[in-house]
């Protein structure tokens, strides 16, 4: 019982939840606005991680430059990919018909290329680093510096993003875009500019998540897959296109991972996570906060 009520466990749940939410947020911005199934999302996290590692190793200024450099790098990549590939896909009406299937394949190709380019460039040898050797004693809970930083940065960014998108004009425009692309265009919203910025923002956020993750995990070219899976599970769980939903979904996953395990047993961790996901979808086929469609 002590354990269940401990602040340490709560902190762990929050960190897990908020990191999941951050990764999912980036994906939702791309999927929700443009229905592009970004299966390369994990590779963006991986890239962000590598940029962070190299900036730490080469610049010697601690982990801080990475928080800017990683999202910058992946954001720029996003811009290049948008202009080079995806703008074409979105504009071509024949392709846009089966946009999920087509974007799935496009991004799958991108993900394979990214993984293998990085493997060629840096070899598959795993790397890791610790920016903060010291532990931070928060009184009730102890956290390693890296985890505390992750909690802080991921927490701030996700909440800021959700608030921004709720109350800001750009945010409202994005919501309009998510709800009904044609109507939004008729209402005078510059669709292409908005799509481009969502795309870039989604990529940048993934890169930031990668930078945070790199401080507490080993880096290797093929590490992205689990992040991509988690991101998809969360955005589906929360309801596609609903950014608040993905925040909630991320937190639910984080809570399941910690409290679910504490209440049952560690063996069941993945069974719980996937089990709950499937159960929710079977009961509510549109996710927790997604828009309902008539389903029989």
């Amino acid at each position, binding site marked *: 019982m002590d354990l269940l009520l401990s602040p340490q466990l709560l902190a762990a749940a929050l*960190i897990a939840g908020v990191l999941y939410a951050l990764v999912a947020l980036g994906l939702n911005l791309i999927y929700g606005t443009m229905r592009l199934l970004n299966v390369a999302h994990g590779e963006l996290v991986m890239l962000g991680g590598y940029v962070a590692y190299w900036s730490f190793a080469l610049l010697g200024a601690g982990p801080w430059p990475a928080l800017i450099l990683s999202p910058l790098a992946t954001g720029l990549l996003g811009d290049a990919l948008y202009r080079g590939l995806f703008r074409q896909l979105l504009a071509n009406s024949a392709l846009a018909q089966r946009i999920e299937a087509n974007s799935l394949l496009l991004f799958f190709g991108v993900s394979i290329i990214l993984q293998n380019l990085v493997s060629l460039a840096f070899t598959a040898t795993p790397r890791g680093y610790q920016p903060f050797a010291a532990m931070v004693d928060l009184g009730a809970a*102890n956290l390693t510096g890296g985890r505390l930083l992750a909690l802080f940065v991921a927490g701030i960014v996700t909440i800021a993003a959700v608030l921004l998108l709720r109350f800001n004009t750009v945010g409202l425009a994005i919501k309009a875009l998510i709800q009904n692309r044609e109507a939004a265009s008729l209402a005078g919203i510059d669709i292409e500019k908005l799509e481009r910025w969502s795309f870039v923002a989604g990529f940048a956020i993934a890169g930031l998540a990668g930078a945070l993750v790199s401080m507490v995990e080993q880096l290797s070219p093929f590490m992205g897959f689990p992040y991509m899976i988690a991101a998809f599970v969360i955005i589906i769980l929360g309801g596609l296109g609903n950014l608040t939903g993905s925040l909630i979904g991320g937190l639910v996953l984080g809570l399941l991972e910690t409290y679910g395990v504490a209440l049952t047993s560690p063996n069941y961790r993945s069974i719980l996570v996937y089990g709950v996901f499937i159960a929710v979808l079977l009961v509510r086929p549109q996710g927790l906060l997604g828009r309902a469609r008539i389903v029989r």
Partner: protein
Amino acid sequence: MFKKWMGAALAVAGLALAATATAQAADPVRIGFSIAQTGLFAAAAPSQLNAYELWKEQVNATGGLDVGGTKRPIEFVMYDDQSNPEQTVKIYEKLITEDKVDLLLAPWGTPMHFAIAGVLEKHQFPMVGNSAASVQLRDLKPGNIWFPTSAIPDRMADELAKMLTANGAKTAAVLTNQLPFSLEIKQFLIPALDKAGIKVAVNDEYPPDVKDMTALLGKVKAANVDAVLALSYPNDSILYMNQAKEAGIKAPFQFVLVGPTIDFFGKMFGKDLDGIVTIGHWTPAKADWPKAKPFFDAYVAKFNANPDYLDSALAYMSCEILQQAVAKAGLDKAKIREAISTMTFDTINGPVKFEGVQNVTTPTSFLQFQDGKAQLVWPPEAATAPYKPRT
């Protein structure tokens, strides 16, 4: 006039000499293998591939591999098995029947070794294994595959229990990743601990994609055990190192299965790694093994990173064994088989001799990190430094 003829004669003689010299420049010895360059195991395989490359470079620098008296340069024929055993089977069939390589080296990983055992058996092609460890190895027919490792689960369980007893541990926590190797060890470990009278206060498993161990480690902390045995893989080993520290686990004996021997792990955890015990039977610190330190230094010089104390050492050992067998037996498969089965080999890990498929000379050992260096701390007779409880 004479000078002209002389010159011509010399020229012809020179050409003839050059011709015979190139004719005698030996053809390469082709050694085939597959390695996981992409996929699930890609992060683990470089430590093995690097050892292979280092060996090839060193041997070729001396003129080549000694094949029953003649030196021939080594050429690798390497394929990516994509971390897929089915692919590995296909590759080894190709190496043997299509590429017709002269010798074989092993792929990375236990599933791969098992998968190709049948192929080796069918074509009667001997190969020295390395990165595989399971009691099921003993079920394989000897004669075409051998395993130099001493980190076999049942022996490890016994030795670990003995080591704990020797250091006065009365209680233990066993945390197991649900992957084959770690599960196999646990299966032998729990009874071994029971037999040794050590109370197992926490005995939990977790899936390989775990992302947080706080709940589990909180339980371990509350149990206040003398020994924490984390049968973990690199990703969860990292989780353990960080989160055990957060949870304030102060057990004097802490064992982490896979991870500590990898180069990046030491760099990531620095001083925190000191005191951690892990599997391994090789260390450059052992003076009795004159080849050990030079291998370590050569690896560091070539790759700018430490070798993996387990995988890189084993991979290199398998090369040395092959090298010594071929020097004696040439390329004839039957003779190589005979050589590997009977010779005692001189490796970076000391002497190695096989009985059936297993290495019977190298004892099952454990390493402990002290001041950033890997020391052999068990068994006591073979230790390079005494075991120190973790503070």
